[in-house]
């Protein structure tokens, strides 16, 4: 482990973050609100800190980054970005303690969307824009962005990319990682732009359209309104946002193929079929469950049922209805959706459909070999055999995910939080969804979680965003051994 080197790269990331504070500052100046001073201060501190780190630990020669260093850079980098990203919140008027600001910042970068704020609309526009913008940065990955933009990361970029986007079967769209990262960001920006335009056609002003696009595409879920999307109460907005949440939940390499003129790309991909199929079935079940019990017309049941299912399964976390008033069966389905999550290679969180698919196929294979003890059978996805070690790593991931979920919810419960809230808060943060159930439901927020509980949840959000291994590996003593 070359610490100077790691800290140097982290310094560059921080510098980068500082520069990106120019965007909320622009809105701060435009609306002439009280966010200008805190934003300027945080920008100064962040740039200075990044610059100092970069200067103090100037590296002699850029070499290959080892697998281990890649993980350390990403894990440390994300924590640092969370810390510095919290500065505008902390220096502004709305957050009283640092842990609240840090929670909000990490919740932003990890595209979770859990909020501490009780009255969002009272917050200044500049700060609110920053809150949405960090979700957009974190969605496709701030490190993927730096790999795309900063040329010197080219050689080691791959290790960083793999640590930040740990897909079970990695896609490389172009021979060079820099080009791959660039393509992903371009596709991401393009779809976000399309959403801004569609929202503005529906009558949203530029500021809110930008903020909502910036939180839909990364499946983040921060809204600028207290009532989230329910504020607009519009079928048009609901459907546009459902559509873009679904896009965000699909593997971005499929979007790229689609844009390159392969319209069947979505259909050919078995994970995408599984994802869309699961969404459809769940919408139908939830709609029939809430039709008659909560909503009188089938149309309204479908509208709110579909929005909530898509919002949770893509791990966005917008709300158009208080689903805590729904029958228990629907609530339970939504809770389970938090575990399923979106596709691998998308901006969504959760365990990811591909892993769940692999896991189900593995279970079937076990049953099959009980019936035919001599059978030779491979696990196949889309007609191709999945290598044994990939299967093992997926099983390991599922085990760790469930284990960490159990451990963290017991921790939260030990602080006196009630049963439902403990489970749902952890499920909603480790899966990067946002709203949970109970005290942290769609119309509540995380302000009432005890002090230590917030730290636990911050940790859960980072675990979920970097897909467990990159974060948890730092706790393994073997990792630090020379």
């Amino acid at each position: 482990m070359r610490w100077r080197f790691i800290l140097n790269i982290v310094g560059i990331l921080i510098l980068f973050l500082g520069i990106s504070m120019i965007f909320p500052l622009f809105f701060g100046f435009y609306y002439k609100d009280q966010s200008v001073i805190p934003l300027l201060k945080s920008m100064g501190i962040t740039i200075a800190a990044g610059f100092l780190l970069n200067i103090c630990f100037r590296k002699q020669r850029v070499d290959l980054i080892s697998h281990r260093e890649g993980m350390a850079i990403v894990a440390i980098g994300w924590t640092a970005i969370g810390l510095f990203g919290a500065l505008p919140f902390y220096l502004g008027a709305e957050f009283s303690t640092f842990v609240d600001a840090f929670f909000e910042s990490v919740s932003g970068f990890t595209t979770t969307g859990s909020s501490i704020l009780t009255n969002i609309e009272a917050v200044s526009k500049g700060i609110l824009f920053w809150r949405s913008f960090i979700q957009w940065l974190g969605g496709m990955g701030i490190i993927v962005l730096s790999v795309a933009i900063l040329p010197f990361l080219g050689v080691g970029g791959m290790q960083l990319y793999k640590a930040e986007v740990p897909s079970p079967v990695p896609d490389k769209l172009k021979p060079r990682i820099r080009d791959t990262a660039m393509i992903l960001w371009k596709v991401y920006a393009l779809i976000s732009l399309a959403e801004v335009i569609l929202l503005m056609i529906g009558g949203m002003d530029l500021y809110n359209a930008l903020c909502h696009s910036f939180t839909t595409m990364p499946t983040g879920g921060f809204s600028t309104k207290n009532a989230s999307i329910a504020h607009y109460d519009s079928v048009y907005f609901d459907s546009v946002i459902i559509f873009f949440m679904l896009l965000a939940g699909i593997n971005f390499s499929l979007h790229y193929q689609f844009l390159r003129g392969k319209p069947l790309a979505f259909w050919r991909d078995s994970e995408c079929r599984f994802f869309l199929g699961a969404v459809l079935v769940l919408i139908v079940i939830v709609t029939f469950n809430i039709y008659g019990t909560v909503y009188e017309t089938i149309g309204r049941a479908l509208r709110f049922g579909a929005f909530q299912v898509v919002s949770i399964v893509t791990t966005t976390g917008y709300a158009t209805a208080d689903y805590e008033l729904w029958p228990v069966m629907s609530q339970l389905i939504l809770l389970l959706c938090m575990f399923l999550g979106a596709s691998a290679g998308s901006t969504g969180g959760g365990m990811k459909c591909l892993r769940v698919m692999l896991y189900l196929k593995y279970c079937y294979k076990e049953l099959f070999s009980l019936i035919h003890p001599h059978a030779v059978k491979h696990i196949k996805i889309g007609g191709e055999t999945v290598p044994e070690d990939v299967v093992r790593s997926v099983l390991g991931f599922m085990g760790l995910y469930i284990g960490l979920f159990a451990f963290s919810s017991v921790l939260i419960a030990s602080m006196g939080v009630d049963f439902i809230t403990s489970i749902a808060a952890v499920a909603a943060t480790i899966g990067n969804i946002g709203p949970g159930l109970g005290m942290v439901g769609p119309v509540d927020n995380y302000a009432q979680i005890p002090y230590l509980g917030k730290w636990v949840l911050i940790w859960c959000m980072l675990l979920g965003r970097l897909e467990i291994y990159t974060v948890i590996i730092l706790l393994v003593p073997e990792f630090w051994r020379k």
Partner: protein
Amino acid sequence: MKVIIVGAGEVGFHIASHLALENKDVVVIDKDPAAIRYVSDNIDVQTINGSGSSPVVLVEAGIKEAEILLAVTNSDETNLVACLVANIISSSTKKVARVRNSDYDEYHDTFRDHAPHIDTLINPEIEVVKTIERLMSVPGAVDVGEFADGRVKFVGIHIDESVRLAGIRLSEIYEMTGKKSPLIAAVIRNEELIIPRGNDRLMAGDLVYFISEEDKLLDTLAVFDKHVEPIGRVLIIGGGRIGFRLANLLEENSVYTKIIEKDSDRCTELAEQLNKAVVLHGDGTDQELLSEENIQDMDVVITLTDDEETNILASLLAKRMGARKTITRITKFSYFPLMSMIGLEQVVSPRLSAINTILQHIRRGKVLSAKSIKNEQAEVMEAVALETSDIVGKPLKKISFPKGVLVTGIIRQDEVIIPSGESVIEPEDRIIIFAKRQAIPKIEKILAVKLEYF
């Protein structure tokens, strides 16, 4: 520029990493998932697990946009078929196959002329014999490259304490030796490549690369205290295919050759095929055999067995027993940095020779030949300067070359010019350019892009 490499063995891996560092789009294909994983973990290239001779896999790899296909798997047949299939899908792609079977030797030219699907066959054994020949011809050289059909040589030599120039500034060489200083293109010191200026000193332990015309080479070498001693007696240890090839060549040049081989059947075969060379049955690390055969009188001992550890030990033993010079065959790249530490500077490797030859075919435009220097931080290229190029018609010092680039020679018909700042490149001149790795893509552009448009 897109390059597809079939085969992720040592040669494939090495070329891929070389090209990835030059920012080329590289796709590596191999059947072995473990080899593919190793490649994708270590270098920034795209990888495909599959057979390189399959049309489906080649199309997936993007053969239609690829400029070059390099087939370097262990199997000659796969390499040939991969080129054939690639040709059917994309005939404009240049195809290079590595073929090791000596049965093809006679037919390299025939293949080039009559098999349109293969542009070049490369046999590492032939290449390594050429390398050995070059090393033997230049005393003290560790690395020799030839340009302008051999009229210009690019030579790397080690400076040790006994050399007068150790510790001397480049600008003082003339006072010191009374001879004009050779054009020193690069110095490798502690694995680091330096382009020296007049004020820089040469140090003991440096590997110095200089350029020289062939007829002035001996004078230049004298500056470095390396003197020619004619090679009259050669001992080859290991009578495999390379050993046989080399012995054959030495026989033709009337060099007295002895060849030691362990396997008695192989000895019989060698004795049948060779006329003048002495074939000895025995172990190349057997001290008694070596002294019996007067190893102390040998000008060069070349160890070429298939076992590299044996080669290293045999070379060390020969050196200790008084052989003037040794050349050692090594396969593992990881041993290279060790070799100069233990005093074996002349090292050859069939793979490295193959890589160097393949590199020449990758350089595009009017690049005639290319040679990568010892630790691959830089390359020397020979190219034709066309009228349309920016570098023609003005003094060199007025041309803005990218950093780390040096024009080290201009060849005008029969004349070889070692240039100064005032020299002017004329159209149709052949120029020899030394370029650091970072500058290679830019140099390729200067030499190639302009030409392609006109």
